[in-house]
């Protein structure tokens, strides 16, 4: 199985180990991973802030690059970016040329845990990590891609990891893209509910499928002097 | 009435609809969604559901006896009744100006809904509109044979009349509010107590 990695601009710039871990995990389960260096962004920031013209420009570029790939799948370590690609059909709803191309690329684009469980049917990637951890359901992955059981199945198979379900695991962390900086006080107020739940869970680490949520959560945990680590699912799964 | 506004609004609706794409098509079925099946014992289910919302329910073949007992236990003086003939001995028909002066109102109910513990009052059949809401206690008598399983059943029955009654009221328990600190308080503007006597003799 050949996979084209869609690493996302956030991971590329701010959290490369997520990208590195994703590649490792994919290779470990037998995939050949290619990385198209022309890629930049899926256009989510512009789309979410209402700049549709700019969003379409960048989206068209994404589509053009990835439709050239002969990989069997395009895989991303981000629920929100994967969901964005799936939303391209709304961006191009009135564009008879780009709509089918957008749909074709979206059909091949998968979030990492979804790809492992639903496509490869792999539930155990041979990972080990010792400690107590919990999972935060990132909103787009949960509600747009219906990812709920998939990450939990993968985590449960990590040897040595004690999994604890987080209270209100599906509550938003307050990031919301530009919302986090347009309304920072509200963003942090929402975040603190999540932090309280994490503290009550008494865990060593909180895991999630989106770097944006992890930055939000991790940024507050470290500001509060907490020892709780933040880890992306790919990072967890890459541990031996 | 005010035809200019009417025309402007209808034109605005038509104009905006014409200018738009249709909604994504959804199945607009004439089928009702599948209903889970209900147990045969509608009286029992009605009682259970009414009691779960703080209503009192008595199932009996001797309505008059139960009614007398309730009234005695309530220790009330001023009893208002609807114009249902079976109630004549129990109280008085209120006049236009004294409906607020009664402690208890007694009416019948034209139907009931088992799945929710709801009474159905049709004010074209009986003068029950004010008697069932103004006095702080409402006692209602409903024939067991008129208890339907579901709300959908009752809607169908109501609509089967030659003309829909001008006022139909569904009553599910005593009045309530949680507007202050979300704390449930029973008895606001409508009755504080609801007694339903299910008449198994008919």
């Amino acid at each position, binding site marked *: 199985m050949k996979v084209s990695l869609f690493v996302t601009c956030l991971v590329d710039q701010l959290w490369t180990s997520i990208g590195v871990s994703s590649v490792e995990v994919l290779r470990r389960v037998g995939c050949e991973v290619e990385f198209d*260096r022309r890629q930049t962004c899926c256009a989510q920031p512009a789309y979410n802030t209402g700049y549709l013209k700019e969003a379409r420009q960048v989206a068209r570029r994404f589509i053009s690059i990835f439709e050239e790939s002969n990989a069997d799948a395009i895989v991303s370590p981000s629920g929100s970016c994967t969901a964005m690609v799936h939303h391209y059909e709304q961006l191009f709803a009135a564009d008879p040329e780009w709509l089918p191309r957008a749909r074709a690329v979206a059909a091949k684009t998968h979030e990492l845990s979804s790809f492992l469980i639903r496509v490869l049917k792999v539930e155990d990637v041979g990972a080990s990590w010792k400690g107590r951890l919990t999972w935060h359901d990132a909103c787009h992955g949960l509600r747009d891609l219906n990812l709920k059981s998939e990450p939990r199945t993968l985590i449960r198979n990590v040897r040595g990891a004690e999994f604890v379900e987080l209270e209100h695991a599906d509550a938003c962390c307050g990031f919301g893209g530009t919302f986090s900086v347009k309304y920072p*006080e509200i963003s942090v107020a929402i975040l603190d509910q999540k932090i309280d739940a994490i503290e009550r869970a008494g865990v060593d680490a909180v895991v999630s499928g989106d770097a944006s949520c992890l930055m939000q959560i991790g940024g507050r945990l470290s500001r509060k002097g907490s020892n709780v680590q933040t880890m992306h699912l790919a990072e967890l799964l890459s541990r031996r | 009435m005010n035809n200019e506004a009417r025309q402007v*609004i209808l034109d605005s609706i038509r104009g905006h609809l014409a200018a738009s794409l249709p909604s994504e098509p959804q199945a607009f079925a004439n089928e009702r969604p599948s209903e889970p099946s209900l147990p045969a014992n509608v009286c029992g289910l009605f009682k259970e559901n009414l009691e779960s919302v703080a209503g009192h329910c008595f199932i009996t073949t001797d309505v008059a006896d139960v009614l007398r007992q309730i009234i005695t236990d309530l220790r009330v003086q001023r009893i208002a009744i609807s114009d249902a003939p079976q109630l004549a001995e129990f109280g008085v028909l209120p006049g236009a100006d004294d409906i607020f002066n009664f402690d208890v109102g007694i009416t019948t109910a034209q139907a009931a809904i088992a799945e929710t513990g709801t009474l159905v009052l049709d004010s074209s059949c009986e003068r029950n509109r004010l008697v069932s809401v103004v006095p702080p206690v409402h006692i209602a008598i409903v024939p067991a044979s008129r208890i339907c399983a579901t709300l959908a059943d009752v809607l169908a029955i109501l609509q089967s009349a030659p003309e829909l009654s001008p006022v139909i009221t569904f009553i599910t328990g005593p009045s309530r509010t949680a507007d202050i600190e979300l704390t449930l308080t029973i008895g606001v503007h409508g009755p504080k107590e609801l007694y339903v006597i299910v008449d198994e003799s008919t």
Partner: protein
Amino acid sequence: MNHLSSETFRENARAALADVHLRGALKNATSLFGERRKSAAASLPNWEELRNQARAIKDEVLSHLDKYLEEFVRAAESRGAKIHWARDAAEANAIICGLAAERKARVIVKSKSMTTEETHLNAALEAAGLQVVETDLGEYIIQLADEPPSHIIAPAIHKTRGQVAELFTSELGMPPTDDIAQLTSTARATLRDRFAAADVGISGVNFAIAETGTIVIVENEGNIRLTTSLPRLHIAVMGIEKVIPRFADLDVFLKLLPRSGTGQRLTTYQSFITGTKRHATDEGPDDVHILLLDNGRSRMLAHPVTRQSLACIRCGACLNACPVYQQVGGHAYGSVYPGPIGSVITPQLMGIEKASQLPYASSLCGACREVCPVKIDIPRLLLHLRGEISERKGSAAERLAFKLWARVMMSPALYKMSSLVGRVLQRVMPISRAWTSGRDLRPIESKSFHELWSDE
């Protein structure tokens, strides 16, 4: 009344976040309502089917709204109801004031109607020298306090029992007490006098049935029954989107609305009113008037994305599910319609210029869409409105920023350069400062993934 403005949402929110009492009240209310809704929905195995059916019915009506409205009007008029059409709030208020003045009304009782709050009816009635009293307990409380509602279902949820007690003591001369049952009795006793004396009763409408001309109004307290049966004149006010096609459709909506709003199987009372009474000696008003309000609704029909805003059945479930509403409450939105639904209909009803912050006051989490009984895709609507706002009212700086952003994302060379620039400037960028007020900032990596891959 001291309405906060939608245009100062940011400041309003900040004030709300500092209000410890409010945040406690919101937390209790939203989590309780949320849990109850969840259990009530779970108790119906065909919940998803019901939502789909409700949405399909609404889409059908909205796609042919003129036809269904005309059908409703014909049916209601054939049963003796008088119909009025109001293009906007001013016209609605004028019609109602006119009807009341014609009656020489001295006492007007009102039951809860968001639509009349939207038009600021009470202020108009008072300006016309007419006394009007709200009879829904929560609405009565905020009327005494001269405040707008903070929640669609529980308008006084922001008030503690102590605050209500103080209010009743100062406005009604009630002896001081903290007992909620006592507070409720006080309100009941005071309002009974008004009911007994009322010449006119004004209500809202939950559903208007085209097939039969029936209006359906739901409640728990009994004040709607009293408002619509004691006075000689009943005026029912409804937005034009309240129509549903058939009497039998009520089954679907009466299953969804109470469960979504309060977690109840059914609210205590539903009143089904079809025209006027048959005989002069029957109980009830002599006259029933129904006012159909547009006030910007017909405009929303123009696009399928915005059209779905009109499917709303005003259950309030989205408020309870919304992480933003949970933190700041209803007043911050500066609108009678707060929360997720408020963020999308307020700019559409009032005009984007009057509420341009609201569509951005969301993390787009989608919890609202999940709980909406008629499946309104609020996040999609928010994005649609953000698109409109950025085109018409966007800040020049932001527009420029995104133009530059697009340039960078279109060019691998510029993209590479931007990370070099970012590494240097990260800490001083305004965006970073907004972030770091509450959170530590993750530094831009010294090598991007692109570079690591090239190294491999």
